[in-house]
């Protein structure tokens, strides 16, 4: 089957390896991966800041690109996925045709772990099992209701999930929140990192690159050496 891959702006600009990993996993699942031409950003930064007109401008473009495609749209990010699935219809409440397009796209969207789980799980197995601390990103867990899938995938590839204190608490990224309320963001980050480091995990894994950039940046500032990966990279590693 054909799967459209929406890389997301963060993956595209900061960590393309995640996109590659996603593609390889999808191909191993029997999908033919297409990256639609002209994708930029889902528009969430503008929307979260309250700039709806600006967000709509970007969203219209994104909708235009996506509605010209078919098949599931795989998004390696809980927050971008939630934007497409829940917030686009909100943004276009006053524009019926756009709202319809948004609903169509929303129905086709799948966050990466969601998609993998729906396709029967990851066909992979780690040669050396790793001890993994999984950070559930907020939009993924609470916005989309995706809680078990990432943990099931981690277990199914032979890695060991290590629980840590207050595991479900927000890491403090929150998009522009990380800059506008940098002090508070850093305080939340500190709590999260202390808990993760105390858990004895070798790796930190999440489904959202935003959270990972924020947490890895904090780990580096602390001089801590735990490996940080997107779930797709972990699975990709086990594919080999």
């Amino acid at each position: 089957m054909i799967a459209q891959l929406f890389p997301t702006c963060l993956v595209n600009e900061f960590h393309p390896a995640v996109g590659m990993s996603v593609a390889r996993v999808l191909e191993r699942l029997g999908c033919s991966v297409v990256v639609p031409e002209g994708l930029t950003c889902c528009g969430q930064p503008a929307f979260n800041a309250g700039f709806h007109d600006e967000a709509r401008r970007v969203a219209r473009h994104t909708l235009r690109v996506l509605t010209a495609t078919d098949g599931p749209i795989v998004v390696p990010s809980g927050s971008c996925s939630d934007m497409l699935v829940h917030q686009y219809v909100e943004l276009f409440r006053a524009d019926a045709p756009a709202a319809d397009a948004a609903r169509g796209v929303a129905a086709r969207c799948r966050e990466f772990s969601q998609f993998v789980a729906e396709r029967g799980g990851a066909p992979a197995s780690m040669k050396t099992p790793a001890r993994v601390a999984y950070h559930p990103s907020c939009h993924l867990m609470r916005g989309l209701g995706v809680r078990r899938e990432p943990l099931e995938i981690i277990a199914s590839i032979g890695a060991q999930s290590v629980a840590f204190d207050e595991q479900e608490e927000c890491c403090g990224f929150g998009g522009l929140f990380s800059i506008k309320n940098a002090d508070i963001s850093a305080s939340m980050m500190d709590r999260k990192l202390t808990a993760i480091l105390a858990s004895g995990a070798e790796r930190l894994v999440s489904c959202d690159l935003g959270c990972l950039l924020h947490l890895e940046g904090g780990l580096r500032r602390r001089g801590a050496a735990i490996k940080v990966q997107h779930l797709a990279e972990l699975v990709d590693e086990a594919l080999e």
Partner: protein
Amino acid sequence: MSGGFAQRAREALGNQQLHIALDRTTAQLVVRRAAGLASLEDADRVRDRARASKMQLLHTLADSLRAFEARLVENGARVHWAETAADANRIIVEIATKAGVRRVAKSKSMASEQTHVNGAFERAGIGVVETDLGEYIVQLAGDRPSHIIMPIVHMTREQVGRVMAQRLAVPYSDDTQTLARYARAQLREEFLQADMGLTGANFGVVENGAICLVTNEGNARMVTTLPRVYVVLMGIEKLVPTMADLDRFLKLLARSATGQKLTAYTTLVRGPRRSGDDSGPDQMHVVLLDNGRSKILAGETAEILGCIRCGACLNACPVYRSVGGHAYGDVYPGPVGSIVTPGIRGLAPFAELPSASSLCGACREVCPVRLDIPRMLLALRHEAVEHTRQPAALRMGLTLFARVASRPRLYRAATAVVRRVLRSRARDGWIRRAPGMASGWTRFRDLKAPAAETFETAWRRRAAGRTS
């Protein structure tokens, strides 16, 4: 963007003692809430029905208020309507003056905090004492409460001991039993001597006009039983349609707040004393307060009027846990406060509050009536953009973003420039000091250098390689 909240938050973050107190209290309350909800049969269903009941009430609020008023009058209570805080205070002071009241004993009422009724009493030469232990200590200390149900979460026992020693001329102690006993002794006299009792209302039951008060200490019972005049100050949104609804809310309120099935005292007041009663007020007044609520009802955040003031959202909120209640700058802190305060006081002076959230959604998850707090925060952010001044850099930046991100070729070119600039400042793939707006990031974290080439470029190359 810097203002009252940013400054207060910074101070709070540096306050180690506050940090310990908040951590300990919120963590415990989270555990207790979980246990409390676990003991509730069919909790999800009760929450759904409670939500439906509140939303239905809001849809029919005018009729409900009329019906409630009629029942109150049948019960022998006098009903007053207050459009503003000042009106409410004026009405309450008038009731007191007409009845020759010298001393008022107050049980917990956040609405009365909102209206600053204590100041109005004092200006009229009428003594007023707070009788909730936490509120009493706040009053003694000249401080302000910092949590909806745990007003002195920000104070240590030593601090409480010092306040009491100073203000009550009792020996210093930091033993909580002793401190509670001091308060009991002091307040007992107040209860017995007070001419007027003043409370808020947790719920007003439309079908029978009952005022429901939910407390643990016994002070609400005291002030509704002993003084000869009893006044209820109640927000117009505090209604529930029937006793069956009240039952649902009672199942949820204490469990969500403290994990208890019910608080020690659940009191239903149905009017002044009846003939033959040995105690109870001679006159009962209910002041129905608008003070911005009808305005909230008219907008995008109408749903927040369904809040039952349990405080669960505060305990679940990582931002509240970091900065505490005073940072929010007004009566209601935390997630609910970030919506109610702009609604009641105006958005312009409190525009920072809706932005002081990572939108994690923990609040919505624990709210007994499933209020969609993140949606309302986003709506207020939009309102702030439409009606208040935004930092020029932010507005320009996002306008530019919108223009660029809707044109792929321009986007590719622009991001290529940004990537190059950032990469030039990187060492080992990381940036320690980012320029401009991004400097907020690198105050606390390293910034990963963007990739040399985008995923898209790499992908097209791979695809081309495969087809050649």
